[in-house]
């Protein structure tokens, strides 16, 4: 009678050997595939879509393909290649930062702000991210037929107040009216200009391993506020938008760090994740973020958890990412924390050498994972 036990033991051993051999082949394949993915990601994305979908407006991968795959190559301008929040022109030795923006947020009023606040702060903040003091804005209003005058007046008021707080003057403007249905209440387009600060030597492609990644405050509040304001979820929480002018914090930061400040980005659409991925790619470096260092309100965390969204992908309107030389990180944080709205400024991670172009998160649980840009659009028309 054959020894069944022995036979099954032998079969097990053979099985185990086969498994080991195939697991080596599998590991080799995994490495090869990962290399291909990383090489593809390091390349400029291509715009290959048949038509525009809402995902192109979300600030994630589709937006990057639209901007870097279609717009930037079409205009062949070195200023655009930098992919900064604002472009810089130098006139008679004076550096001027210039930017343009449009606002289509729905609903136009939400806890913590309105489309008018966003228009002023969003534009002025793009200027500030170039290390420039915002000076003046232009304002173009696209109004829908039938818009109640009170709604318009409230927004004009909000714009005037926000401009005063941000220290910018509205110096030109335009108005257009379109038929009912051709726009949703009102859209605002702006152009901003500012003077580059003498203390600023920002270069988003100049990040060095060891540099510290700083965040100016809690994340995810604007996106969550808009989401809750739409009333599509029956969540009781009220979260206010963080829309605010960031120049005062940048001013303090430049004072504290000078040339040790490598670059600044405001973490709007696509959130902190998009900003870090763009920077890692631009400088050919890796980044490591400690998840439990990132400040998030419990209500924001709860909403994100329920909806399956990562707060790192949620839009902010008053938070920036700063990359600084490690020697200046403490001074930078001390300076920024004196500014109202930036009391929670914190170091969340650091720049590494490799794997290049990738952002990794050390999870609060102790594992590691990749943090990529947003795919698709969980929340259209956020600003």
């Amino acid at each position, binding site marked *: 009678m054959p020894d069944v036990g022995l036979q099954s033991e032998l079969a097990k051993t053979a099985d*185990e050997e086969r*498994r080991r051999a195939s697991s080596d082949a*599998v*590991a080799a*394949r*995994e*490495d090869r*595939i*990962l290399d*291909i*993915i990383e090489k*593809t990601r390091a390349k400029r994305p291509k715009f*290959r879509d*048949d*038509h*525009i*979908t*809402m*995902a192109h407006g979300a600030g994630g*991968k*589709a937006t990057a*393909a639209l901007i870097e795959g279609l717009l930037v190559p079409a205009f062949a301008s070195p200023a655009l290649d930098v992919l900064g929040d604002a472009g810089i022109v130098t006139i008679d030795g004076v550096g001027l930062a210039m930017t343009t923006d449009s606002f289509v947020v729905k609903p136009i009023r939400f806890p913590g702000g309105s489309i008018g606040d966003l228009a002023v702060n969003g534009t002025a903040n793009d200027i500030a991210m170039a290390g420039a003091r915002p000076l003046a804005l232009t304002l173009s209003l696209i109004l829908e037929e039938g818009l109640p005058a009170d709604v318009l007046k409230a927004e004009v008021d909000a714009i005037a107040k926000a401009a005063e707080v941000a220290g910018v003057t509205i110096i030109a403007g335009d108005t257009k009216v379109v038929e009912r249905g051709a726009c949703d209440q009102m859209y605002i387009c702006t152009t901003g200009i500012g003077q580059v600060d003498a203390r600023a030597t920002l270069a988003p492609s100049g990040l060095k391993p060891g540099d510290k990644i700083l965040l100016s405050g809690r994340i995810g509040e604007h996106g969550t506020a808009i989401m809750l304001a739409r009333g*599509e*979820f029956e969540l009781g929480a009220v979260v206010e938008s963080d829309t605010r002018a960031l120049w005062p914090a940048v001013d303090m930061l430049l004072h504290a760090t000078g040339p040790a400040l490598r670059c600044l980005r405001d973490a709007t659409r696509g959130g902190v994740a998009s900003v870090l991925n763009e920077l890692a790619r631009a400088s050919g470096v*890796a980044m*490591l973020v400690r998840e439990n260092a990132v400040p998030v309100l*419990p209500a924001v*965390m*709860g909403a994100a*958890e329920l*909806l*399956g969204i990562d707060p790192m992908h949620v839009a902010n309107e008053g938070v920036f990412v700063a990359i600084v030389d490690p020697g200046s990180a403490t001074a930078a944080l001390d300076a920024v924390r004196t500014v109202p709205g930036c009391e929670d400024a914190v170091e969340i991670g650091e720049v*590494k*050498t*490799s*794997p290049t172009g*990738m952002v*990794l998160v050390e*999870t*609060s*649980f*102790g*594992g*590691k*994972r*990749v943090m*990529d840009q947003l*795919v*698709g659009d*969980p929340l259209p028309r956020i600003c």
Partner: protein
Amino acid sequence: MKFVDEFRDPELGRTLAGEILATVQTGRHYKIMEVCGGHTHSIYKYGVDDLLPENVELVHGPGCPVCVIPMGRVDDAIAVAHEPGVIFTCFGDMMRVPGSDGTLLDAKADGADIRMVYSPLDALRIARSTPERQVVFFAIGFETTAPSTALTLKRAKTEGIENFSVFCNHVTIVPPLRALLESPDLRLDGFIGPGHVSTVVGARPLEFIPADYNLPVVVSGFEPVDILESVLMILRQLNVGDSKVENQYARVVPYEGNIRALEILAEVFELRPHFEWRGLGFISQSGLKLAEAYADFDAELRYAVPGVRVADPKACQCGEVLKGVIKPFECKVFGTACTPERPIGTCMVSSEGACAAYYNYGRFARDRELV
């Protein structure tokens, strides 16, 4: 966050990891399948497998609701969405699933009125506030989401809302598990059992796994500590040659299930004779349709649904991924032709899909060091 942070405690995680290491037998390889996409997502999101010994392998199972929808059903959905006057509502992930000619997102850009909702009740609310339009809800999911569709239908019926219908793609968990276990190319040592499905159906329906296939099952919660504890419970069963259903997720899952929810399911739905699963083919008695009493709300009866079966793209190996036969990166198109931005297969679409979870979170091999 209360009631969540406790289950993400790194200290507790390390303790469990230590116990797992002490429990595994060297020289033995353990292949454990997590059934739910929610587990897959957590495993990658928190880097749970970083904490497991090398000889404990987690295999991703078929429990991702988006992943199992075949292409033909997406085509049907797009056809309904293009019907004049229809507002088509669905969960966000479904909008990016490719049919044979584009996604619902493409159909939306083409002019179809397609709206993302987070719950079938949102769809019903749209129907209530736009009585002049027809609102269709694209229902997907296992027994976890089926009760909310059922409740919505009950409410629609009570309120007499006639401009609302459901395109039903609900499926049940047991038939695909049985199909998997019958498949000869898969050798498993145990199952991390579905958590949220079990809140509805209970743990009892999983008893066939130890009874017929002699494998341990531990119904598990979705936080990293839950998953580690479940792995440990499975290993302990294996070490003593035991196989039974255990409930790690007892804080949420009653062993007998949610009787009220099961009653509502039985009232509103009935089993289809068979239903096609992406990559797994037709599985008998695995899909739900609206029962006779709710036939008025059945979008498949209200509209001319093409109902054409579409073969998966040749290069796509979603079926093998769903069965746990191959790892995501072993698929021929993974990460190259098929990415989260341009998915070919469903597993790359949903954040619970094994491929998307691996691409988005796990794409950093364990042995590579960050410098």
